[in-house]
């Protein structure tokens, strides 16, 4: 990508990469998932104006005055010290969530943010057992994982407040089928350790759906933009549309409008632990031809003449 790439160019480049490396279609499945998540991660940064401004502040080879990494993947290798580095008290860093160190430290760092354990200050003063703070983080989930569920190994690195040493805790997180965007997954007892014999806090991982080249979600509903020719919109058509779990036959009614949504019930994401699923929406996008051949022009002109003659007021009797 050029440094001055527009938002639309970034979006197009992402879609191209995401399509190429999507785990369902890539030839090399072993590296596809990682590359797909890398593309998502880069899109998270470059597709967000504020994050991109931060990233753009430093040239690709310029030394960073504030320790800001010059590339997402180079962050760890350069050994920079980030503002929320684990050496800062209270810092938590995850790996395995789908976001690299770069993303974690700048945009989604796990932290014991604004809601530490209740009654913390009183307990700390009295020396009474205190429950550790909860830790929050984001976890990148592909739509396929959200549909079927999966188990993800996660590592969390933090500083032990008592010993001052860096500690890494590894555990597995089960992402249940129907993990909708924004939903929180609780990992009990893996948050900040308690003091004076108090229990550890929990980790809450907020699900964030990886951008998909073909589908988007809203709650348990899935949306797919389907391009159709103008004559199919006018005359109606039978088409095959992709869904997350296979293709479906779809009838486009005659007189369909641009932006019209066709609902296919029960082909969305699972709703919680019930058997119920959300819906799948095909959003019609009428595509006008970018160029036409001579013969096509003749037909379009005929169509125009016919249409104009219909609009002529009837001659007075």
């Amino acid at each position, binding site marked *: 990508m050029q440094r001055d790439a527009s938002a639309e160019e970034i979006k197009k480049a992402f879609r191209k990469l995401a399509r190429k490396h999507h785990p369902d279609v890539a030839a090399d499945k072993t590296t596809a998932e990682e590359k797909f998540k890398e593309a998502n991660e880069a899109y998270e940064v470059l597709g967000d104006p504020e994050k991109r401004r931060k990233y753009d502040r430093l040239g690709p080879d310029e030394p960073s005055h504030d320790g800001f990494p010059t590339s997402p993947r180079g962050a760890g290798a350069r050994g920079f010290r980030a503002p929320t580095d684990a050496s800062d008290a209270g810092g938590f860093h995850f790996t395995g969530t789908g976001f690299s160190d770069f993303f974690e430290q700048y945009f989604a760092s796990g932290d014991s943010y604004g809601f530490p354990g209740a*009654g913390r200050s009183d307990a700390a003063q009295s020396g009474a057992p205190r429950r550790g703070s909860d830790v929050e983080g984001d976890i990148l989930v592909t739509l396929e994982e959200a549909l079927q569920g999966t188990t993800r190994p996660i590592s969390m690195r933090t500083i032990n407040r008592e010993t001052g040493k860096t500690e890494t805790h590894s555990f597995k997180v089960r992402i249940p089928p129907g993990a909708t965007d924004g939903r929180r997954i*609780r990992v009990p007892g893996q948050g900040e350790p308690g003091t004076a014999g108090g229990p550890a806090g929990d980790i809450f991982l907020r699900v964030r759906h990886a951008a998909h080249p073909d589908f988007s979600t809203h709650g348990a509903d899935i949306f797919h933009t389907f391009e159709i020719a103008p004559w199919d919109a006018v005359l109606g058509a039978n088409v095959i549309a992709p869904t997350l779990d296979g293709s479906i036959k779809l009838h486009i009614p005659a007189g369909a409008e641009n932006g019209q949504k066709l609902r296919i019930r029960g082909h969305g994401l699972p709703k919680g632990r019930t058997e119920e699923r959300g819906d799948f929406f095909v959003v019609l996008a009428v595509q006008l031809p970018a160029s036409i051949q001579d013969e096509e022009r003749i037909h379009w002109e005929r169509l125009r003449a016919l249409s104009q003659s219909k609009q002529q007021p009837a001659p007075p009797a």
Partner: protein
Amino acid sequence: MNPSLPPDSRPDPESAADVGYTLDLVATVCGLTSQTLLLYHEEGLIQPAAGHAPEGYQFDEDTVHRLRQIEYLRNAYGLDLPAIKLTLDLIDEIERLRTELRSHR
């Protein structure tokens, strides 16, 4: 990580996401009474994910997270329930708007 975890924190983290939270379980996990939870429900602070009567209520992990927020706002800032509801509604709205912003990119 912490050998002195109370029984409510012991479930295998791998299966935690699939655990359903009954009224009693979510009360135990959050160190509250069932009566307090029902009061919060009455005040519109929490909503069960399923069920139409207290004995059949099923809560999810977002509710556990919400209860932690409620208790923090009560204990750290001394907010009353209407003030907590207003604060949480505002947080929800910010989260919703951020999600919407992301979806437009």
